[in-house]
């Protein structure tokens, strides 16, 4: 950018002489998209952050209260336990995805990227099916599957003599959040699978041939050729998993309700935000929008910080 902009410019606009590329009228093409984007994304986002410093009744937030909403969120005896509970549960939710969804995804990718594997196309299609389903549909379907009285899963466990495992999976405080996280991993495993597969398939075939000639073992090939490609992709997948899960709502809402039942064991930031800022607490039903905006802001800041940390960790290696 510093070196001779005139040169670059004249190089670009040749052979026309007149700079059609520099006419201001180009802006008219951008305007509609930019207007919608600013009015309905950038502006409401910033305003929502601002509203976290306000309080009021119903839809009018007109009293500036400083950090009051945050103080309540972090320390108020009625509010804080719910917030910290949801915050911690969101981390659990995220870590199950990292562990199960991304490990499975990597494993599937290592298998599927083998070009001599027959039926790879079929399995790829199957692995990706749940990713195209609506999250609500996935949630409801698994809720029925896991039904303690009539669900096919417990029926099956009973039939094969594992009746002791036929638990009310979504009714116990210890199991409900892990189970919901597993269902969500079932749905989204297709994404890491495809990202890793694409990365692995970008390795030129002659690397493998050379390794074979040199007598490299399967493990050596994985470690020396495949891993260096995979590690940077782990950063991408990690960021995706983080943003996707700190923003989650539907799967908990459909499987455990807006309260993350039982006893808020599955309550995550998404459901807590919905109850507090939008639906309003039962039975009053009046939302506390200022507090809701504070929850959204905390989510937003956590997201940004998390993304930066993951980036730093995986980029630092290069």
């Amino acid at each position, binding site marked *: 950018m510093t070196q001779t902009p005139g040169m670059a410019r004249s190089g670009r606009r040749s052979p026309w002489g007149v700079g059609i590329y520099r006419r201001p009228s180009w802006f008219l*093409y951008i305007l509609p998209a930019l207007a919608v*984007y600013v009015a309905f994304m950038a502006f409401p986002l910033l305003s929502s952050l601002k509203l976290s410093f306000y309080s009021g009744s119903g839809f009018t937030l007109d009293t500036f209260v400083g950090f009051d909403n945050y103080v309540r969120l972090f320390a108020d005896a009625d509010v804080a336990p719910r917030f910290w509970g949801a915050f911690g549960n969101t981390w659990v939710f995220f870590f199950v995805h990292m562990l199960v969804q991304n490990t499975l995804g990597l494993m599937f990718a290592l298998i599927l990227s083998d070009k001599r594997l027959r039926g790879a196309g079929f399995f790829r299609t199957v692995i*990706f099916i749940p990713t195209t*389903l*609506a999250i609500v549909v996935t949630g409801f*379907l698994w809720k029925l599957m896991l039904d303690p009285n009539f669900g096919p899963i417990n029926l099956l466990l009973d039939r094969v003599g594992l009746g002791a495992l036929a638990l009310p999976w979504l009714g116990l405080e210890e199991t409900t959040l892990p189970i919901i996280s597993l269902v969500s991993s079932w749905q989204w495993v297709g994404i890491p699978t495809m990202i890793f597969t694409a990365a692995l398939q970008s390795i030129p075939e002659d690397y493998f041939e050379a390794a074979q000639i040199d007598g490299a073992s399967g493990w050596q090939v994985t470690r020396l050729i495949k891993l260096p490609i995979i590690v940077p992709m782990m950063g991408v997948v990690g960021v995706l998993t983080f943003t996707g899960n700190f923003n989650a709502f539907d799967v908990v809402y459909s499987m455990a309700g807006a309260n993350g039942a039982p006893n808020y064991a599955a309550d995550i930031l998404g459901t807590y935000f919905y109850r507090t800022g939008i639906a309003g607490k039962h039975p009053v039903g009046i939302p506390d929008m200022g507090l809701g905006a504070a929850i*959204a802001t905390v989510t937003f800041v956590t997201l940004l910080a998390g993304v930066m940390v993951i980036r730093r960790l995986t980029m630092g290696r290069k």
Partner: protein
Amino acid sequence: MPRVNDGGSARRRLRASRMGSYLVLCAWAVVVLVPLYLMIVNSFKSTSDIFMSPFSFPKNPVFDGFRMVFEEGHFLLYLFNSVLITVLAIVGVMLLAALASYALVYWDVRLARAVSLFFLLGLMIPMRIASINLIIMLKGMGLLDKLLGLLPIYLAMGMPMGVMILTEYFRTIPRELVQAAYIDGAGSFRIFRSVMLPLARPAMATVAIFNLVTIWNDLWFPLILIRSEGQRTLMLGVTRLFGQFQTDWTSVLATLTLATAPILALYLLLSRQFIEGLTAGAIKE
């Protein structure tokens, strides 16, 4: 002699590991397909049949569930609303994003680069964070509890990804093509319509598929913005019907089957494009 041995054991090891591969893949295929099989098959059984033998094929299929969904629930209304809002939003995103991307690629000033970056920022930020203010805004505009109130939100939501995919694609189109058209006397809009748009079809497909799946499957915005029965989208309707039918599993499963069928059918037809579109949309940055 040791060489032969080595080759043999290596091959054996290879075969064993391939067996392992198939075992893993088949096991996962069962985990994916069985719930879907159960959903579809049991929507054709009576509730008592479902509870007695959920895994069997329906011996005498019943259609009560589907009848309930259409007669008792307003399924067709929900479906119509979802189709309407999804089509409008996809067409809108494609059009606005294509226009903007065209200018962002060819408009050679610093401002254009800044605007590109500004759009890219939106990729990392989930739109839900803005919910509180969106509710207040839509209420002010009289669009709260209106199906069409979702439209500007979906347009804004689709814009960063649409602009990213399309600018990337337009950059691969040789400038000579545009210059040739310009020399032939075509104006910049004419070039857009007759050169860029036809060439951008594959990238447009990616944008369309990504938005199709996200908007069709979206629950959040309908849930927080819409209350009236007549304005509900399909997924909001599904949550309602799930509550309404409760223990009537036949009807519940029929609801889920019907809500899933359109996208699932499209996916099976165009699975390669779906996988590409959704993965590209997920990676974004």
